């Protein structure tokens, strides 16, 4: 007799949910967000609000998978600009449908990321998430503002 594993196939959610990377009880994305200027905060909020409604991540504005060492961890980044600064939000996709974890925020000028070890840190965080050494916390995106 075959032992069938019964899985409930939940319908795909209409919108993406973004989850903030947390380690040791610290929400690293919120920590980065708190230090942004008002304009950058507004830009980031508007970006997530729009992006979560786009089903195919390839069509997200400013989206690309990173190359080099980040490629193995399937780390991607979202670009947005505020106050003429080029911001980058790095993330990885989760196992759940339409779930993504934001693992690091930084900015970028020419070939230089600030903080300098941004890509390396993103890779470490992606690995920590994969191995269960870090967690995520669902990011709230309000619709009333």
């Amino acid at each position, binding site marked *: 007799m075959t032992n069938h594993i019964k899985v409930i196939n939940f319908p795909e959610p209409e919108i993406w949910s973004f989850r903030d990377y947390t380690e040791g009880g610290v929400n690293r994305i919120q920590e980065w967000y708190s230090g942004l200027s008002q304009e950058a905060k507004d830009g980031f909020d508007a970006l997530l609000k729009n992006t979560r409604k786009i089903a195919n991540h390839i069509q997200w*504005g400013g989206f690309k998978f990173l190359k080099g060492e980040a490629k193995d961890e399937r780390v991607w980044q979202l670009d947005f*600009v505020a106050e003429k600064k080029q911001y980058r939000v790095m993330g990885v996709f989760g196992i759940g449908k339409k779930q993504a974890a934001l693992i690091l925020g930084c900015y970028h000028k020419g070939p230089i990321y600030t903080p300098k070890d941004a890509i390396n840190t993103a890779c470490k965080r992606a690995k920590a998430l994969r191995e269960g050494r870090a967690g995520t916390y669902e990011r709230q995106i309000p619709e009333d503002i």
Partner: protein
Amino acid sequence: MSDRFQKISNLLTDLDSRTSYIRSKLGVLVPSQIRSMRLKSNMPRQSDLAQAAKMHQSRISMFETPGASNLTLDTLSRLAAAFRVGLKVEFVPFSDMLRWENGYSQDTFSVTKIDDDIEFLQPTVSTVRKRPKRKRTARRILSSDEIFQTPMATGGVGASTYMIRVQQERVQLRLQFKPSESAPSQDRLADVITLPNRRGSVVNDLSNLRAAAGAGGHYGN
């Protein structure tokens, strides 16, 4: 204090906060529309759109990056022309802007091209909006309306004559007021005074006029 309350407070009091808020929404929604139209068009590559709009591909890439470009009306017009659609830029209340943002979806965004825009190409009686008849609305006398005494002689009632310089652009205005009960002698004053031009016309009694204005007197066009 909640984040929303703080945000609203900033928007109410600070110009930079309002600018930042508006710019952030436009900085995401406009590039998203460009990307959406490009992906659904017959020029899905940025280089195709660049060629159609007579621009460099790197500019298209920048236009599609959230917040990266301060798109001018000229650039937007050219992009709209390349997509063969129209463009509307409109000042709206903040609530409208929020509703637009919440209702917008890059996946479902779609604009009829001029080639398929039957309503534009073959307008029928039902689709051409008739010019609505102006509703006659009563307006209060404004503080900016200038009332001054003039030596101009008239054939009206009373010794004094006054001019009204109405700060409206209507050629003809009618002033209506009800004479107060305390001034029965003024009943003979015309209830409706027609101002033949912007400079106004002669009104016979200033105090009555002021009383009328203060007690619900109004004029309409």
